[in-house]
């Protein structure tokens, strides 16, 4: 595997040359400071751009074109990372060794068409796409309530009562959806294309010279250069005791969604110590949560913790019976306290390290994950795979105990299943 970063003027081009895969993956990454009122627009725009283009004005036209390119796949994903908004477009194709000559160039040309020729010109097909996407987005936002786990998590963030980006609804807002017009969509498109920081990642068995000629020919970004602001969110306010909120819905199981705020950590603590803390406490089948809350006490079907490192947050989620709420919370608190006191074995730390190293090795078999690694290198200043394997070995039990004291429960949200438990 060979990595190279090339400054193309308006964007950085990252090439990862490898013969491991039969496919080629390209990811275009556009980032900018997040604004709450732009989230709905962002989701709408990226769906609109991949739905049809000026050249392929209906979804059907676009799909037929991708089928001709041996199922070239163009997709998009948007999410928030700390203070930033991340818009990504992906192109995945079979290496033309397995199809026919010319497919690589034709596929890149198609991706460029998606990026640079949105379907704003033809009024009729624009209207059709707009109406369909409006209806689909509306139903998606309205359907969040049907997914109790997701709904509990969104409600928990609401109840944190912080005016911070992590409380923004990733799926968007109905009131903002109703404000979207062709004009606002076009204006936002130009803003994204002109003001974002752009990175393009490419992985596969490719010829550098050939690919550079295609990039110059098709990927004509005209972004302004701007200094990068920090992506990391830190907390000024902290609760002395957690806020507890319960809401009842007509379902069987209850969903628990909890946030914990973490004091500002240095880069090394955040990248390595915190990772091991999380694995030991709640993020593996060997974790304290899984062992003690699920296996020993049969309190939950699932329980796990996860990290939003850029937000300095740890999240805990569980599916429980409502009558087990107090007992579960008590155990969570107790297990977190034990991490502070060092009531875990050196062996737990070693196992977590081994698991971490395996995860690193597994990245090598996954194109998407390899690109993520290089992206994280830029965002979190995380090392490459080899550096990470070395750094994780340096973490000690004392390091973990030290950061354990910096993690505090903030908001506990229970989405209570109101249906009778007729099981027993």
């Amino acid at each position, binding site marked *: 595997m060979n990595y190279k970063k090339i400054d193309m003027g308006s964007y950085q081009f990252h090439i990862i040359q490898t013969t491991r895969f039969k496919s080629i993956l390209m990811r275009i990454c556009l980032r900018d400071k997040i604004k709450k009122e732009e989230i709905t627009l962002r989701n709408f725009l990226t769906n609109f751009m991949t739905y049809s283009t000026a050249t392929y004005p209906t979804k059907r036209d676009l799909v037929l074109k991708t089928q001709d390119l041996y199922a070239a796949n163009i997709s998009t994903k948007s999410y928030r990372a700390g203070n930033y908004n991340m818009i990504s477009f992906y192109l995945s194709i079979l290496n033309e060794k397995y199809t026919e000559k010319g497919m690589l160039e034709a596929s890149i040309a198609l991706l460029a068409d998606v990026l640079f020729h949105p379907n704003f010109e033809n009024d009729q097909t624009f209207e059709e796409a707009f109406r369909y996407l409006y209806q689909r987005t509306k139903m998606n936002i309205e359907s969040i309530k049907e997914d109790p786990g997701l709904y509990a998590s969104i409600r928990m963030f609401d109840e944190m009562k912080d005016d911070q980006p992590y409380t923004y609804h990733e799926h968007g807002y109905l009131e903002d959806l109703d404000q979207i017009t062709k004009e606002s969509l076009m204006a936002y498109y130009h803003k994204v294309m002109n003001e974002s920081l752009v990175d393009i990642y490419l992985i596969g068995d490719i010829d550098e010279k050939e690919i550079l000629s295609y990039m110059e020919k098709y990927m004509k970004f005209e972004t302004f250069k701007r200094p990068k602001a920090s992506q990391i969110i830190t907390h000024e306010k902290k609760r002395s005791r957690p806020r507890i909120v319960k809401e009842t819905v007509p379902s069987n199981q209850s969903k628990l969604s909890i946030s914990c705020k973490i004091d500002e950590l240095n880069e090394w603590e955040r990248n390595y110590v915190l990772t091991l803390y999380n694995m030991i406490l709640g993020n593996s089948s060997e974790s304290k949560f899984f062992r003690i809350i699920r296996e020993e006490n*049969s309190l939950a*079907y699932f329980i796990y913790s996860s990290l939003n490192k850029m937000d300095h947050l740890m999240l805990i989620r569980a599916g429980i019976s409502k009558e087990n709420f107090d007992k579960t919370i008590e155990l969570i608190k107790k297990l977190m306290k034990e991490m502070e006191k060092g009531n875990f074995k050196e062996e737990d730390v070693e196992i977590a390290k081994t698991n971490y190293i395996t995860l690193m090795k597994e990245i090598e078999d996954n194109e998407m994950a390899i690109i993520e690694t290089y992206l994280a290198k830029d965002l979190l200043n995380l090392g490459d795979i080899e550096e990470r394997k070395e750094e994780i070995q340096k973490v000690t039990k004392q390091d973990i105990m030290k950061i354990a004291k910096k993690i505090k429960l903030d908001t506990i949200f229970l989405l209570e299943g109101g249906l009778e438990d007729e*099981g027993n």
Partner: protein
Amino acid sequence: MKEIKLSGLDQSVFTEKLENGLEVYMIPYTNKTNYSMHYITKYGSINQTFIPVGQKEKITIPDGTAHFLEHKMFEQEDGMDPFTFATQSGTSSNASTSYQITRYYFEGTNCFKENLDYLLTYVHSPYFTEENVEKEKGIIKEEIRQYDDEIDWILDEELRKSLFQNDATRIDIAGTVESIQKITKEILYQTYNTYYQPSNMVLFLSGCFDPKEALSVIKKNKALAKAGTKEPIREEKEEEPVEVNRKEYRFSFPVVHPKVAYGIKVPLPKEMDKYKFYLYVGMILSLLFGLASPFRERMKKEKKMTSFYYERNWVGNYLIIEFYAESPEAESLIEELKKELRKGTWKEEDMNRLKKVWISSEVLMVDNISATIDNLLEDLIDYQKLIPNKVEIYQSLNNEELKEVYHSLPLDNDCVVYVDPSTKEME
């Protein structure tokens, strides 16, 4: 050891059948760091009535036993459980139960031999006690209650109840909160001894490993050597009539938008190759209802659907075609769908374009070690043999046979399930 080449895909499968009847399938890769090992018994939730090994009378076990048994295999007499064992070497482990199989798997990057040895050992070391069986009921109850809240799960279940009169796929894999209460240590042992014989099992190894070394580990494994009884499985399955069980069914659920499921039950025509039939039906569905279909374009324009997908699955010798949609006008969407099915028009060039897509996805699939296991396992379960020349078969598909298959479809043997939004009031 026999080598089978997957044609057009630069990949081989090595197979060996052991004396005790266990079939081993090995797919070694040269460009991977990870490996995947799946140990599978051909026993799932639908195997419910049988004569236990060493006995004379048939028994019918409670709904959800296969899934319960899977959970209980993680309990070992020495207190070490497979999760713990796997985690020590950074390996991930899990298990799953379907209608037809139960599988146990390890996926990792190191300690291949130790993990393989342990996988075989623990699956052949059952340890059920009254106490640990009771404890598991609490965990599984939570799991079932979670499914009861998921509308897509319930809709799928109701569609199966509409499609089948007797077939055991009518019953949820995990059973019900009531049925699992009836499970006992004795039932688990009787079931285990019958269905977990090596002659009823298959082992798949895929990724970075050496097949010769793997075989030597397998042949030396003590628990596996002790397990061989090779008793034939004597079971009873309900005959499933061709006709669907109920044509239309409707229920309310606290969803925001109406949902609908539509199914067609297709018996495999006599003198038709089962795999080719499966492919042709898939082709018809893609042509009429796929992402590039005029039907989709029209329905979206008429605001008749927001989400829509379809799938097809074998249940015995019935091919089940299922459509799921979320739609503000569910009834009208189903009417349109039925009309489109009966019209059945497509262009030959569209079919050729789809062949490109299928070939491409086959090449990509083989780049993924776990997907390759799933793909080959599906061959074994649905066709009782490996199909190593899929790319060639795709290339051989033609419009004449496609039309023939289309005309053979019993489109009236269908059923529909509607979900109406309800606002269930809390008391």
